[in-house]
Each structure stands twice: as C-alpha cells, then as structure tokens.
C-alpha cells in the first residue's frame, strides 16, 4: 500500500475489519478483504518460514496462508473455534491470514487515526475506536516478505 493510500485513509476515514491476535487489536481496511472463512485443511509447504502455514484450497485456488501470531513474532497460540482465516487481496493475488477471532466492521473517522511515523512499516496507522487501540495493517508488507 502506498503512502498516498495511507494519507487518504487518515484524511477521509473508512471502513475497517477489526480482529484480535494475542489479545491485541488489529485491522485491515475492508476493501482489502475478500473472504472471512473458518480454518480449512492446510497443505504444508516445505522450505518456507514457520509463519507460512501452507496453502489452502479456496474455491479451486491454492491460496497461501500466514499465521498472524507467528508473522508478528508473537508466541504460537492454540487454534479454537473462534479462529478465522481472513482472505485479503494483494494486487491480484490472495492470501489467507489466520487470526484468533474476528471482531467487527467499524466506521472510522479521520480524527480517530494517526499515521505511523515509521515508513514502510507493517502497521500503517493507529486507530482509536471505542477505547481500543487498533493497529491498521498493511496487507502488502504483511504478505510480501523477503527471505
């Protein structure tokens, strides 16, 4: 996601999908999300880092799945029946992100946002909504990792 997009979000506000991982609040912009599904059987991919759980069959497509906790360097957690896979779209490619539980779709006003001072950071801006601190994640940086 470009800087322009971040600024636009912070100036105009928008809809976000909030979710929880390791008791912290995160969110994607709703426009980046294509599906919210449960946990599907994952086919492990050898030679990939631990946070890449493998690929799932999403309507005939093999979509890579990332465990958000591991991706963020958090301790590995148990999956339960609240655990969900959020499918996001990066460019024309999809990726699944496993989180502890999905919360809500929320309308965010510009005054609730603050751009992260760190450039090209995983968290592109911080949101304060309903007394929660939510980190808005950048799907592009989350998924396009280097070796």
């Amino acid at each position, binding site marked *: 996601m470009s800087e322009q997009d971040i600024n636009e979000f912070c100036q105009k506000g928008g809809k976000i999908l909030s979710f929880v991982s390791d008791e912290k609040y995160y969110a994607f912009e709703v426009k980046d999300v294509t599906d919210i599904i449960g946990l599907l059987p994952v*086919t*492990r*991919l*050898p*030679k990939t880092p631990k946070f890449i759980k493998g690929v799932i*069959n999403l*309507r005939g497509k093999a979509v890579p799945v990332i465990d958000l906790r591991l991706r963020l360097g958090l301790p590995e957690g148990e999956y339960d029946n609240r655990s969900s896979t959020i499918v996001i779209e990066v460019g024309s*490619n999809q*990726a699944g992100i496993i989180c502890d539980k999905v919360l809500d779709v929320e309308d965010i006003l510009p005054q609730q946002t603050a751009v992260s001072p760190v450039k090209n950071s995983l968290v592109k801006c911080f949101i304060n909504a309903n007394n929660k601190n939510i980190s808005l994640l950048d799907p592009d940086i989350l998924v396009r990792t280097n*070796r």
Partner: protein
Amino acid sequence: MPKFESGMENMADMFVFETGDLLEKLDEILMRTEQEDSISSDDINEIFRTMHTIKGSAAMMSMHNMSTLAHSVEDLFYIIREDPTVKYDKPALYELLFSASDNLKSELDSLYDDAPLTDFSELENKIHAFAATMKGQPATDSSDTSSADTNTYEGLFPDDEKEGVLTYKVTYSESCAMPDMRALVLLRALGKMCEVIKTFPEDLDADNAGDEISKKGLYIKLITDDPNGVLDLMKNAVNVDKAEQAKKPEQPANAAKKPQPAQKSAPEKSAPKPAQPANAVPKKPAEKHEQSMISVKLDKLNRLLDLVAEIVITEGSVISSPDLKKAEINLDRFNKSSRELKKLTDELQDVVMSIRMVPVSTAFQKMNRVVRDMNQKLKKNVTLVFEGQETEVDKSIVDILNDPLMHIVRNAVDHGIEDPEVRAKAGKTEPATVTLSAGYDSNEVVISCRDNGAGMDTAKLMAKAKKNGMLTKPENEYTDKEIFNFVVAAGFSTNDKITEYSGRGVGMDVVKKNLEKVGGKLYVDSKFGEGSVFTIRIPLSLSILDVLSVDVGGENFSLPVSAVSEAFSCKAESFITDPEGNEFIMLREKCLPLIRMSDHFDIPNAEKDVTKGIMLCCKDGGKEAVLMADRITVDQQVVVKPFSPLLDAYPLKESGMAGCSVLGDGSITIILDMKEFLGNYDFRKGE
C-alpha cells in the same frame, strides 16, 4: 515511454492485435499473388483497405511514421486500382511491399519500447518514386493536388431546406490528431438525442475528411427538440474547441456556388465503381461482411477454463459426498440427476477446450514467407508443401511452434536441400520440396518437416561426434537414430565449417530445449541421399500432467510419471552407506544416491526404515537418483497450477517444487519438478 500517444494504453493491445492480424493477412495475399503472378481486383482492393485501416488506426495512436508509410503504399495501390493496365516492375513492387510490411511489423513489435519512432522516410521516398514512375511523371506530393482550397462547403445551405433543420458548426482544436474519428464518435452520441440529417464533409470515412474538418470545420444538420442539450454535447466532446449554431448567410458566398463536387476530393471512394451514386451513404468497408467471429482476450478464456475445471472438481465432491452415504434415503432421483449433470459438465469441458483450439495453418503460413525469402537469396527454388494444416491444436502450442518451425524449415532449405546443380548431378529430377505436415498421434500433436534433399551421412556425423568427444559408449553400439540425434545436441555444429553439415544443428539444441520445456520432443531421421525428417511431438494439452502421487509422513507429493523410471521395494542388502553418511541404493549393478524425501522436505513423521518405504528411481536432466517415500497413493492426471506469486520469495522452485494441484476431494498435492529437484540437490552430506 512507449511510442504511442499517452492515454492510449488501453487501446494499444487492440491496436497491436488488429494491425498484426492485418499485416499477416497482407503477407498471405502478397505471397499468393506473387506466386500466381497475377493480382485480382479483389486482392488490390483488399490490400488497399488493409493499408487504409492501418493508416487510420496508426494515426489514432499517434504513430505518424506507420501512418504515412501505410499511406504511401495505399497511394501505390490507388494507382494500380484506378488503372489495372498500368505497367510496373513486379519484383521491385513486391520487394517494396514486403519491406513495408516488415517495417510495420517491427515497429509494432517495439511499440512499448522507450524509443523514438523509427524513421521510414527512406522507404517512403522509394515507394513515392516507384509510384511516380508508374504514373510516368516525376514524383510529386499527390495530397496537395487533391485537397480543396476553399474554406466553406458547397451546398451547405440549400434553398429548399426544410424548416426546423438546425445547422451547427463544430471546430476541433489544432492538436486534435484525427478529427474525422472524433466527428464519427460525436455523431454517434448525437444520434441518441436527435435526428442527424447531414454532415459536411458528407463522407466522414473519406480519406481527406480529417483534413477538411480541420480546415473548414464540421457542419452538422439536425432536427431536435432540445437545441441546448445538443449544443452542450458538442461543446463537451473530446478535442472540441468551439461549437456554435451556424446561420444561413444573407448572401451565399460566391465560392459556394462554384461547382466542386465532393467526390473529386475523395477520389478513392468514387472511382472504382462508377455505378455507385456520388452521394452514397458512407459505409465502412470492414462492415461489408457479416461478423461471425469475435476476438476474445486470452485472459478471459483462461479464466473460463479454470472455472470449468473448478466446476468439474466441485461436481465430483458433491456427487460423492460422504453425507449422502450416511442418510438412509432413496437416492435414485439424485443419482439420475447427477448423471445428467455429469454429461453436461463433460460437454461443457469439451466445448471450452475446443474454443482454445486453432488450426496449425497459422503457424505454417508464416513459413511461406521464410521459404520465399530464402529462395530469393539462395536461388534454390524450394517448394513448400503443407499437409494436414487444418489440424487443430491449443493456441499456446501454436505460439510455441513458431520458433522451432522457423529454425527447422530454415535448416531444411539451407542445408537439407542441395544447390540446383548438385541436385541435377545426383540425378534428382523431382522439384526440391520441403513438406510440413501435422496430425495427431495418441495424446500428442505431431508436426514434421520433411525435405527431399541430401540427407545426412551417418559416417560423417559419427566422425564428428567422436572428434567433439560426444560419445558415451563404444562407437559400434550406436544406432542410426542415436547418431542423427547428435545433430540436435548442443555444440555439435559450432566448429568445422567446411563440411556440408556445418550449420545443421545451428540453434537446434535451443529448439530442442524450448520444446522440452513444454513437454515436447524433437526426433531426427534421415536417409543419405534422400532427405531428412525432423519431427516435433507435443502433448495435446500443456496443463495436464500424468503424475505418481506419494505419501511422505502424511504429506502428499506428486512426481511426473515421465521422470520416474521404476518403483520398487528395497532389500536390506542393497542399502549402502559410506563413512561420510551418504546413502546409496544398489539397483542392478548401479549405485544410485538415495534421497529421503522426508529429509529433503523436513517431514518428521515419515518412515525411516528403507525396507518398509517405497523406492522411486528418478531420472531427469542427466541426473539419476532413488527417492524414498512412505507409499504410493495413486497415479492420476492433474492440472498443474503454479504457486502464488506471493511465495516467490521462498526457494520452492529451487527445491524442486513446480506448483500444486487441487485434487478431486479438495485436497492439495505438491507437484515436483524432478529436473530442478535433482539438479539442485546437494548429494554430499555432512556440510
């Protein structure tokens, strides 16, 4: 920056596709007419139209060089069309036409390059000079003489004009590239809200319409209930500088009374068919034929193919759902419906597959040109014959075939066919022929190129292979076939240019490699003194692969059947280890390295005991090894899908994983590429 005007990016693909198509058709016509040594008026019209269309669309893309070059060729054919009896130097004409066509093609290919437009003025001057000699007069710029020099249109305000007819004048900005095109678009938009009676210039398709509009403006006569809306529409149209209602002048200008028929300034339109009334309704030549073909983006077709594959898979999982077995109900009607559904999806699959099929003739036709050019240069007079050119293959295969065919045909003409004198000496009376044939054989498309030239001498080939150190077994063990295959080996023809075989094999190893990339194979056969045959075999569908699926610690991998030569259980005594910890399997006096797939892919719960697992002897890319898996699950056909580009950062490909495939039960298997797997595997342990 690409060569075309910015803002036209979305048009560029279409432009390349259509113009490329037109140029190919043009080449076909030129080839045919040159061979038959006669050119019919239909052909002349066709060439004329083609050039006209290219000129128009090139101008729209602001490719002025292409547009003027096409224009000069168009001029040339205008002369021929006007006077079919005109005398001209035929070979020179074809030379000019072919080089014009080539230049246009290469400019099209480099459309996206960051380079200035190629300068075609030299060729244009040649064409102009040729046109001038045809007309028997010195070269002059013909466009100057044809354009009218008045600033108003004749008959703009006739005396008997009906009431309620409004006249508007639209002026386009000077920078507007193709005012006639803009005018057509504007008229189409106007047509939705009012009745357009007449325009000036009358024929917007005419060649000089654009010039006239930029000079005198565009006048539109129409009847409408909403004059303000009409005016707004005109004012807001693209590139419009000024739009206003024009009033009939009190005293008609004298100039308008001068007889100056409109068709005089549009000679191309009026001349060939005198029967056509001068004020004929403007019509586009392309619309003459009823359209029964449409062009579709390949992306869309691929998406369709994917969807159908998904439907078939989903259908399978619905019909064989385990839930159905649990329910103790009568499934007769369900079974009947599901059989019908299956029939329909099968048919759907067939139809979708057939959409992508095109006749190989498209690839063959291009060879005509290659042979013609070589005939001119080498004076060999080779005839190119096609067999089975209506054979249909997948579009992607035709695209792949172009390069290999070109190499093979070139070699056949250059090295296979002897010089006419040599042929005569050898007592060969039949004409030198190269035959391209196509057909199916089991699941493969077979394309062969046969020449009746000199053939290859096994003894000479053998001597050369020996000299190049290419022999891997005793000389007398080689069969003829194996000897001929030296021809397509890398480095075979790089030295010793003196023998008659030099060049045979130039680029052939590359051809072979490219074919192998898509699962194709290249075979060579020859009879000394009688000619050679090069045969290409490509699987009918590129995306479907026969695989052997194995289970390793609960994970599923699939190996291409073509790479697995043998599957066997291993006895304890044929398992060997060396002091460094390397493991080997003895297989019929061969000692092959053992690769435990569980080690390679870091799978913890796999079978460790070599006598209990299954051994797969794999060979690809010149390397051989034994792979160990827990058990073979099934052999099946799968559709290989490459991994998501998001995984590009990880060494999947380098580790031998080519992609994955979604199976009928919804699970995913990882497809291995044995060439990469064995090629990159580090056979030395302990490092």
